[in-house]
């Protein structure tokens, strides 16, 4: 360990939190992660995009919780004992930060991956959009997808989604009327 620390000093590393989502190993840069909490249920919010699972109350702050699996175009995440919510702090459009929770199947560890071990995002071989992926790292002979959180959780895009949903909803209502 001390040796690794020594090497980390000299070599540039990607400091990240790894977690499991489905069968895949993902990593998020640690700078965006504020904390990881246990999943204790969410309060569903109507008229939200389907990848928004609901909202939670974290020490008085209302935080939306996203389902990355849905965001990646897969089915909704199953709730397990190991399911966690990672609270991310993202830079907001108006400046400052906005907190967003994402659902993880399980949190793995905190890693410092040498940049040399990180490859570019592949063009094929995964159904996740390329702009979501920052790179592919090999951890313990296994691929870990390092997510580009700003893209994945682009607030703009999310807001657009939300708008679309609202419009669609109202449109549906009008049609029904």
């Amino acid at each position, binding site marked *: *360990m001390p040796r690794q620390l020594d090497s980390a000093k000299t070599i540039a590393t990607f400091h990240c*939190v790894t977690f499991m989502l489905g069968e895949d190993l993902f990593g998020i840069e640690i*700078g965006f*992660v504020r*904390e*990881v*909490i246990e999943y204790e249920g969410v309060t569903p919010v109507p008229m939200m995009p389907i990848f928004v699972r609901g909202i939670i109350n974290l020490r008085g702050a209302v935080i939306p919780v996203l389902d990355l699996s849905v965001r990646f175009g897969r089915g909704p995440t199953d709730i397990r004992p*190991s399911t966690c919510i990672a609270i991310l702090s993202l830079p907001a459009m108006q400046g400052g930060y906005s907190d967003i929770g994402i659902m993880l199947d399980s*949190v793995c560890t905190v890693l410092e991956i040498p940049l040399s071990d990180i490859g570019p995002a592949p063009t094929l071989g995964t159904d996740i959009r390329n702009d979501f992926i920052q790179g592919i790292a090999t951890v313990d002979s296994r691929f870990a997808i390092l997510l580009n959180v700003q893209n994945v959780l682009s607030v703009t895009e999310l807001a657009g989604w939300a708008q679309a949903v609202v419009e669609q909803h109202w449109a549906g209502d009008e049609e029904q009327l």
Partner: protein
Amino acid sequence: MPKTLLGKVSAMAGIAILCVITIGVLGINRLDALRNSIMESSTLADQALQCVVAVDRADTHFKTQVQDWKDILIRGNDPELFAKYKEQFVVEESIVQASLNDALPLMKSIGLADGDVTRLRDAHRDLGMKYRAALNQFHLSDANAGKKVDALLRGIDRETGQEMERVTHTVTARAIELSKIERARAELSYASARDETLVLGALGAIITALISMLTIRNVQNSLGGDPAYAAHVVRQVAEGDLAVQVRVRASDHSSLLYSIKVMAFSLSETIRDVSAISESIGSASEQVSATANSLSQTASELASSVEQTSASIEELAATVGQNADNARVTENIACKSTSSATESGQAVAEMVRAMKEIASRITAINDIANKTDLLAINAAIEAARAGEHGKGFATVAVEVRKLAERSQKAAKEIGDLAAHSVGVAEQAGTLLHEMLPGIDQTATLVQEIAAASREQSVGIDQINAAVTQISQGMQSSAASSEELSATSEEMSATAMQLQEMMQRFRLKGGIHDTYAHRAEFKSPRPAKKKQARLFPTVLDDNLDEPVDDSKFTNY
């Protein structure tokens, strides 16, 4: 006319007695008349005799009076003698007077005139007067007084004396005559009575003869022959000679002899049958004896078999008793097994519960480990955000994470083990649970087996008792059959005796002869059904069939 012999004979005897009584009454009447006649005659004769006696006495005493008179005359000078002779003289005189007075009424009775006697009496009285008067002349002192007085009355008594003698003679003659007359009358009476008696006797004899003949005929008709002959026949029958030839008249169908003949025939038929039956009884009793012997033997064999069976059953009873004991022990064991299995089931259930609790506790540990892990990660994140200052803290966080992971791993292992144990324990519980009904069933079955064994034991006891009874029954049966054998032998002997007794009877020879003989009874009066009943109908059926003579060889 009465039907019975007694009636007939009684009636005839009555008639005879009537006749005899009539004859007797008539004879007595006749005798009465005869007696009256004789009495009359005898009275007459008596009177005649009295008359004769009286007259004769008067004559005699008159002569004595005269003698006394003469004595007075001769010896009357002696006063003593005088008085004596005078007294005698008076006495004699009174006797003569009395006798003549006596004779006087009798004279009329014997049919003579009493005038002579009256005259004689008067004459005698006069004579007496004359004597007394003359006696007054007699002086005692005068020696010749007698001669003087005599001279006064000489010859005075001659007429009276002669008269006296004549009357005596007349009376005597009359008496003799009367006697003759009465004798003749008696002869006549006797002849008439004799004739009447003869006639009555002859009549009685004739009636008696008729009645006797009738009686004899009746008796003969009733007996059917002479009583002696009947007695002879009866004696022969009594001696057992049933072949006796009884002579009866052809028309006779009701007499004693005919009945005896029928009886003899009937008896001979009966005895024939009895003899045949006794023979068959003899053979039957011999068969019975043989059968009884074989029965006795069989019974003895059976008794021994039954005893063997009894021994076998006792062994069986012992085996069954052992079975019952074993079943009882097994039952107890099964009961214990049931309770043990139930307890085991409870223990396993408790174990499962404990395991589940362990699992839940393990979950808590796991939770704690997870939380610790999460805390370590958050710490690592915080450390990372702290930059260079957080390096040491990051190391601690890593260590804490490692510990949490180890805790997680251990908890997981324990949880797995507990889960596995729970599964195993549940399986054991299930198996025990499945086992319970089996054990219960086994216990029930064993109980049933025990009960069945007990029932078997009871049943075998009963069988044993029954077999003992059968054995006793067999023994008594054997004894009984021996007794039966003895009895049948006795019976056989009795039948032989009976046959010997039957041989005493002499029966008519041929059997056909007998049946022909019987026809003789049947034919004359077919109208009389009573007659037909004398013979058993069975024999009538056999009348025309050939008869096995060998059956009758003994006769």
